[in-house]
Structures are given as structure tokens and as C-alpha cells.
């Protein structure tokens, strides 16, 4: 996965052989304040990536650099084969952006705005990727069919966020950035949003990079999870891989003669085999559970915030490559 100089030249022309996002040794500081210190990761086309991390870890900064809204201090960045600092309008047309707190266009009506914003993508429509999406289908897709002719100022918080997602995908982006898309969603809206993301990833082949604070959501949506802490990526892998790598422990619960037991073991299968060999039919209510993503996340972030920066960096590097 070497980044060659040639990648940047043909902006947006078929570059499907390249990764959607390639970041190598990205560094960012504001004055003397270091925000990103050697961030590296890759997103393959069609992949759904979740970026997790405590507030102030640099998630938004990372996304803004990839979106081309912020200039980096140092490092190699390629988004759809192009350096986002020099992305042209054709490149821009292939990217969808959903930010945390849009409040714009409050006087417009829902369908009217989707129709208007969709038209900007018309010159960038290609035979194999027709742009934009039909505004009527789009309002249905994000569940705003009943609000299509309402003024945007009259939408509820959750409806407004769904409109933002709709605007983000109106140009049928190849790559979509979502910054905390479900903050303030009720469970139903969240479920509907997850369906939209799955649909985009499966049917449209959209590469998606999203940030969230909801670990359950990260686990549900992401093919791969990146954890950003201490100014760098400290973990990169699927939820399963992360929990295996971080704790290496699995929790086993059972009951025997009405008494409940909990035990953590590195080799759960071996432990359970032994358990049955020893107690046989007395064992009931058996549960074997790998460490949750939440435990993994807390363990990783705490390790970094308590200032043990270097030891797990090597471990982090092996996540992505190992499997």
C-alpha cells in the first residue's frame, strides 16, 4: 500500500484500485499544542470504519483534514487517491459530509433543499454512478416523507439530523464522513439510521468513516474500529479482534447447585472443557462472553490517559496487519 506520486494527478477519474483513505504519519498541532502525532490508517473501498476516542482526542480534526477543511501540519494523506488539501470540485463531488451541528437553511423546505443541493452534482454524474439521488426517494429513505414540504426550522432534532444525513448522501458519494451522526437520536431513529448506513454500504458500495461515542453503535455498524487516544491510533481492528488483543480474557459464568460463579480465563474453551469434566451435569446457566467493546475501550483509553504511551503502540500496529 505505497502512496505513489502519480495518485494525486487524475482527480476522481477511475481510481477504484486505490484505497478510499490512506493516512500515513499524520501530524497536527495548533501552535505548540499537539493534536495528532503520527496517525496512520487505511480504509479500503466499501469499508465502514468507526473512529472512537475520548473528547479532544483529535477525531474531528482527523475528519476535517480528510474532508479537506483543515490543513495538516505534516504527513501523507490520500482521500480517493487525492491529497484533500488540493482536492478540486470533481473530487469534492465524490465526498459526502455530515457534521455534528448543522443549523443552516432553516427557511428552506425539506424536499426543496434536497432538490436544490442535489443539482450541484449533476455535472458529475457518470453512466455507472448517476448523480444526484432522487429527492423524493431520498426523503423516504431517511424517513422524512411526512416532513417533505415542512420548513426545516420546524423539524425536531432527530429529524434535522436525518435531513443532514440525506444532504450528505444526495450526491451519491463514494466516501461519506459522519461526525457523531446519531447524537440526540431516540432508539427508533437510531435503528432507522443504522439501516440507512447498511444500505449505503451494501447497495451503493459507499466507504463510510464515522465518529461516535456510542460503542454499541460502533460495534453494529463498523467493519473496523479505530481508537484514537493520546494523539494517535492505539487500536485498529474489528470489535472481536480488539477485545481479544486487549484483554485476552473471556468471562465465563455458570451456576452449580444453585450457586452462581464467574471466572475469567484466557483459554475459555479449555476452561469449560475442564469444568464439565469435573462437574458434568451439575453445571447449568453457562455463559461464555468475550470482553465487551466497552471494556476494551475503557482499558485502552485509560492506559493512554494515565500516560503509558509507547508500550501498546506496537500492539496497535499488529491489529490491522495480523488478520
Amino acid at each position, binding site marked *: 500500500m505505497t502512496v505513489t506520486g502519480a495518485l494525486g494527478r487524475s482527480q476522481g477519474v477511475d481510481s477504484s484500485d486505490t484505497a478510499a483513505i490512506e493516512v500515513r504519519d499524520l501530524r497536527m498541532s495548533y501552535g505548540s499544542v499537539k493534536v495528532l502525532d503520527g496517525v496512520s490508517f487505511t480504509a479500503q473501498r466499501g469499508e465502514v470504519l468507526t473512529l472512537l476516542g475520548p473528547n479532544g482526542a483529535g477525531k*474531528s*480534526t482527523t*475528519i*476535517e483534514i480528510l*474532508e479537506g*477543511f*483543515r490543513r495538516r501540519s505534516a504527513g501523507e494523506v490520500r482521500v480517493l487517491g487525492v491529497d484533500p488539501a488540493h482536492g478540486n*470540485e*470533481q473530487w*469534492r*463531488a465524490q*465526498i459526502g*459530509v455530515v*457534521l*455534528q*451541528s*448543522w*443549523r*443552516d*437553511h*432553516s*427557511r*428552506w423546505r425539506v424536499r*426543496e433543499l434536497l432538490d*436544490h*443541493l442535489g*443539482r*450541484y*452534482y*449533476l*455535472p*458529475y454524474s457518470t453512466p455507472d454512478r448517476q448523480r444526484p439521488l432522487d429527492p423524493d426517494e431520498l426523503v423516504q429513505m431517511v424517513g422524512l416523507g411526512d416532513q417533505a414540504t415542512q420548513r426545516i426550522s420546524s423539524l425536531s432534532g432527530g429529524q434535522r439530523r436525518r435531513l443532514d444525513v440525506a*444532504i450528505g448522501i444526495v*450526491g451519491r458519494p463514494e466516501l461519506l464522513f459522519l*461526525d457523531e451522526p446519531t447524537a440526540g437520536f431516540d432508539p427508533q431513529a437510531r435503528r432507522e439510521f443504522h439501516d440507512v448506513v447498511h444500505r449505503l454500504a451494501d447497495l451503493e458500495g459507499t466507504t463510510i468513516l464515522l465518529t461516535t461515542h456510542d460503542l454499541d453503535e460502533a460495534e453494529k455498524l463498523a467493519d473496523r474500529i479505530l481508537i484514537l487516544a493520546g494523539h494517535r491510533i492505539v487500536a485498529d481492528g474489528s470489535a472481536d479482534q480488539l477485545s481479544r488483543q486487549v484483554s485476552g480474557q473471556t468471562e465465563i459464568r455458570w451456576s452449580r447447585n444453585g450457586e452462581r460463579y464467574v471466572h475469567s480465563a484466557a483459554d475459555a474453551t479449555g476452561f469449560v472443557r475442564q469444568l464439565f469434566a469435573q462437574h458434568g451435569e451439575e453445571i447449568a446457566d453457562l455463559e461464555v462472553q468475550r470482553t465487551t467493546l466497552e471494556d476494551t475501550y475503557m482499558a485502552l483509553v485509560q492506559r493512554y490517559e494515565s500516560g503509558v504511551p509507547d508500550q501498546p503502540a506496537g500492539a496497535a500496529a499488529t491489529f490491522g496487519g495480523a488478520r
Partner: protein
Amino acid sequence: MNPMLHAIRLGVFRGWTEFRQSITNRSDQVWIVSINGIFIAVMLFQRDATIPGTDISLALATLPSLLGMNVITGGWMTTATVLSAEREDGTLLRAKSTPNGMIAYLVARIVLSSLNIALGFVIFLTVGLTVLNALDGMGPGDWSILVAVLVLGLLATLPWGAIVGSLVKSSNAGFGLSFLPISAMIAISGIFYPISGLPGWLHPVAQVFPVYWLGLGMRSAMLPDEAALAEIGGSWRHLETFGMLGLWAVVGLALAPRVLRRMAQRESGSAVEERRQHAISGY
């Protein structure tokens, strides 16, 4: 499909839509009616007064001055307030994240300002026609001067509105830093009271700013020639009018793209969020 032309067309549509939304919005309607009602009332009160040294109605002199003022409020103030408010609410960032969105956005600013100015013209000219019989004496030469002052006035004020709107930190500042100086410029520009009646030391100050020249240019188009006697130097000073408006236009048009580009480069999600937090904590 040429993306640039396409974006310009979208910008025109956008500007028209925003104008439509504005004139159908209740609070905007109240503002339009009350502010223009005040100006019309001023003219009605002035009907019986005359310009010093002539027998021309003072209201007749106020009408073209108001047309000039209308250009600066529509060109400078509207652009500055809308731009600063839309940086704050994320409209500008939205434009930035849309292909060719910034071009369309700027076109929309020009279209909206022009339409607002046109609306003011229609209102004031209707009053002029029906109540003051102001347009009777105007020949084709006068009309072409009026149009030239209008177009040049727009070029002299709109870029400055964009500059102010780009530099301010909040929409409140965007309104304050355009409303207050423009009100001051208007107060000393001879729009509501002939400049010859103002203290002499104010004359050079007033003549630095485009408001005075917009008013003078409009008066020269709409008033009989003898009214020029009430002006500084007793003449319409067309050369100076076009020269000064041209100077403001050239400097503004040279600076605005640079300032706009720098401002646009800095727009990002966190910049918008920061301004939002600032706006919330400010109250």
C-alpha cells in the same frame, strides 16, 4: 454541462429563493413595511419644505437620496449581515462541502442584494410617482445616469459588505459593524437634510464615503438642474461622483476575493461549532 455556468444558474435560483423566502417571512415583512413606512412618512412631512435657495420640494430631494441609501443598505449591510449569520449557522460550510457551492453562494449573495435593492426602488419610485410626481421631468439621459449610479453603487458597496461579513467573528458583530457605521455615514451624507446645512467640518468626512456620492448621483438624475445650487460647489459633480464610487468599487473588488478566500479556507465544522458555543454563552 459546464460546471461553472451550472453553478451560476444554481446561484441565481438560490438568490431568488432566498428573496422569495424573505418577502413571505412575517418578521421580514414587518421590517420591510416599517422601515420603508418611516422613510415614506419623512417624505410626506417634507412635502411643503423647499431646498434652500430654490422652490423645489425637499421631499423631491429626499426621494433620490433614499434610492442611494437603499443601494448601500442592500449592497453593504445585507451582504455583511447575511454572510456573517450564514458563517455562524453553517450555510457557508455547506456551500464549501458542495461541488462549486461557493460560486453559487456568492452569486446568490449578489442576486439577493440586487433584488432587495430593486424592491426598495419599486417602493420609493411608486411613492415618487403617485404622491410626489417626481419622475415627470426625467429624460432618457437622467434615467441612464440613475442606472449607472445604481450599478456602480452596487459594485462599490457589495464587496465591502462581503469583506465586513468575512472579517467579523459573529453575526451580532456583522450587523453592528455594518449597521452603525452605515447609519453614521447616512446621518452625515445629506440624505435626510441637505449637506449644505451641516457644519462645514463634516463635509470632507461625508465625501469620503460612498453614501454621499450615491445620494448626489441619484439627485442629479432626478432633480431639476437648479437644485444643484444647494449642493457642495453648486454643481452635480458627475466626474467626482463616478470617480469616488469607482474608487470604492475598484478597491473593494480587489480586496474582497482575497478576504473571502481566506475566510472560506478557515471554515470547518469545529469553527462553526466554536462560534455556536460562543453565541450560546454570549447570552
